[in-house]
């Protein structure tokens, strides 16, 4: 044992030193919208939808790895690269789309926060204010290390879904077989839709931007790329490991008892009669945690992108004075989103719908840039996509792009 430790000690320490960004970026893809979608899918299609998870995990790992690789090799974020290679006009347009889409996603997360507040009988407005103030203080005062620790702690809180799932006493055998073999899948229009929705909430434009910026901010050196890539795969696995339990929890209760959900946020309350008080509370707390993680990370993504596109200093390690645009934009997004949720003068449902459509437009654009960058020898040197990998990456991108366009068109024509 000691010999083994001595042999791998160095590698283990390097791994720990780069650990963080990829895992956090992947986990953040399970924001409140993600949790809601998984709950809904589990309630409607039961264990059969689990089959899609394996596929989502692979796609998530592949796309996030591209982001980690470009960030570590070039030392630049996606925003930097788009601005430098495509000029002001393209950069401005992409930033504008990202800003609006992210705003919508933050509103969706605040709205989930509101639902949880109602569930636990907490006053909404004070809770929202506390979240905003605390988030702003930690982001603006804390350095990268502190914030990374807080995010990793948030990651651990997803464990509540595991306990919650165990409390529902699911049929584990069936769950695991469904994961690897297509059991009881009825290829209906709804099933395809749900699969695409799951894919769409997990692989997002902001997720691609965030992983780049967050790796750059950690200043990971090219020679440690191997370890970061390893972490990316681990992060993708962990994300869908938690998703597995979310689906299991609703599948073994709501699906089995044929109870339909109107929205995913209500899943925590709906499982109470079958799984008991503790499972319900844990499920709710999980959603609360996911919403807060989502709010902070998506808002942070826009701030990073703004700094990159327009060249301002933007790092969690910056003192407030130097990074004031970065921090102000972070705060501003939280306040505006909170106002939308507290005073819902536009239907939240419409906002969420609009955000999904916008994300569907943005995602192909981002993959276009990402593929161009990862195949550019000037930028990536010997780290360009290898031929085999390029086929996989292009195939995955095409699948994601088709999926998002499919959702967009079908929602426009209300199929």
């Amino acid at each position: 044992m000691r010999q083994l430790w001595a042999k791998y000690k160095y590698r283990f320490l390097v791994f720990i030193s780069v650990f963080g960004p990829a895992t956090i970026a992947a986990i953040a893809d399970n924001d409140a919208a993600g949790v809601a979608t998984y709950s809904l899918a589990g309630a409607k299609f039961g264990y059969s939808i689990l089959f899609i998870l394996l596929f989502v995990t692979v796609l998530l790992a592949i796309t996030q790895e591209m982001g980690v690789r470009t960030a570590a090799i070039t030392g630049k974020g996606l925003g930097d690269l788009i601005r430098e290679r495509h000029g002001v006009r393209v950069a401005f347009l992409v930033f504008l789309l990202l800003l609006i889409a992210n705003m919508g996603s933050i509103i969706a997360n605040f709205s989930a926060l509101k639902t949880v507040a109602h569930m636990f009988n907490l006053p909404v407005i004070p809770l929202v204010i506390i979240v905003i103030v605390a988030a702003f203080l930690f982001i603006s005062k804390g350095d990268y290390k502190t914030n990374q620790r807080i995010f990793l702690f948030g990651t651990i809180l997803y464990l509540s879904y595991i306990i919650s799932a165990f409390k529902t006493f699911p049929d584990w055998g069936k769950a695991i077989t469904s994961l690897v073999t297509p059991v009881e899948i009825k290829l209906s229009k709804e099933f395809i839709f749900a699969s695409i929705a799951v894919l769409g909430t997990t692989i997002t434009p902001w997720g691609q931007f965030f992983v780049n910026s967050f790796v750059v901010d950690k200043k990971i050196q090219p020679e440690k790329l191997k370890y970061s890539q390893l972490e990316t795969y681990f992060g993708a696995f962990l994300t869908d490991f938690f998703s597995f339990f979310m689906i299991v929890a609703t599948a073994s209760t709501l699906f089995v008892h044929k109870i339909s959900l109107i929205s995913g946020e209500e899943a925590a309350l709906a499982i109470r009669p079958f799984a008991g008080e503790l499972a319900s509370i844990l499920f709710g707390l999980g959603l609360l945690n996911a919403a807060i993680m989502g709010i902070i990370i998506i808002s942070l993504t826009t701030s990073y992108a703004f700094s990159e596109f327009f060249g301002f200093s933007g790092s969690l390690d910056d003192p407030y004075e130097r990074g004031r645009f970065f921090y102000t934009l972070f705060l501003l997004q939280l306040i505006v989103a909170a106002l939308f949720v507290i005073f819902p003068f536009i239907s939240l449902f419409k906002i969420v719908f609009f955000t999904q459509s916008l994300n569907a437009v943005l995602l192909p654009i981002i993959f276009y840039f990402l593929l161009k960058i990862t195949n550019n020898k000037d930028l990536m040197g010997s780290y360009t996509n290898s031929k085999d990998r390029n086929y996989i990456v292009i195939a995955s991108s095409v699948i994601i792009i088709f999926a998002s366009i499919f959702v967009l068109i079908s929602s426009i024509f209300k199929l």
Partner: protein
Amino acid sequence: MIYFSELKGKKVYTKDQVGVGTLEDLIFLASETPKITKLIIRDLKENKIIVPIEYLNKINRNITLEKDFNLSELSENELYLVKNILDKQIIDLKGNKIVRVNDIAIQDKDGFYIAGVDISPFGILRWLRLEKITAKLLSFFPFAFSAEFLSWADIHPLELTRGQVKLKKEEKRLEKLFPEDLADYLEKTNVTNANKILKILDEKFAADVIGNLNINYQTSLFKQFNLDRCAKIITLIDPDEAVDVLLAMSQKKREQIIELLPDLKKKEIKALIRLSRTPIGELLTTEYLAVQPKDTVSHVMSKIKNETTEFSYFSAIYVLNEKNQLIGVFGPHDLLLQEQSGLVYKFMTQNIIVIHLTTPVEIAVKKMLKYKLSALPVIDMEKQILGIVTIDDVTEYLLEKIK
């Protein structure tokens, strides 16, 4: 001055209206004087061709080349405008991110060279073709918005070749700059600091720099120098400037310095000072038109219609910033050549010939003749305009004196 955002994508023709392609990029010399040497044109077959700037005939709605032009290649020490500067991150000496290069200003008088980089949001709006409308909207607000430049003198040309736009604020490198640039830079630091920098320069260069400083600053600098150094610098700078500086000092110090001058210089300066007994203030008129740098041409036109009807003399329009300091000038002819929506700061002349209240009338006349100007603005220590002196009043005064 033109912006690169206005040039990029312009159609290129030869003099006899044969289409060549569209302008894609420019090539410049990465040196202290960033001269633009070549144009990169995307021709009609989508190939990139390089044409030396010597074949450029004129730039207006389109770019016109000479009839027979040769192609060229990138040579040593040359860089691309788009690839090496535009949109790049600007960092300071410590590597902190400052802002990005939003646009590039190109000086188009006496050859083409890079004047500086625009780092303001206006640089972005210009690419989006939203600059004019935004400027119009903002003019309803009481705050002043305008383009913000980083002078070429502040950028490390060497770092550009390494793909970095790095600022330099280091004393050792200052000597390679132009005296005008250095003067601008020195005016922003305090006098003790400026003195320290001037000490490491050679005397001729230092004198050039001092000659380019404003009178207020010159006076405080001379207070820091010992008499020998003062005398040396006075000998090196333009006699007109020298008299201006000397007249702003106390009489005792002035006389001490003049005693130290070489004989020939002493005579010249003394003669000039004797002339200065007539204060320019008596010839001063406040009948002049002042506008702001971000006024539009049509706004200036209407101002001329409303405010200058009573004027007996009208030859130049002066541009003042929000501190009322004189920052530019242009004539009615310059104005008529512009489009209605053009902005003043884009076509005004920034290099202004000025005089002070202490300037002798004879020197004022000399300056008018030398620069072919029919009126000169008189400014005070803070560069604020006090009035103008016109050639009519000056000649009238001289005629009377002859009688």
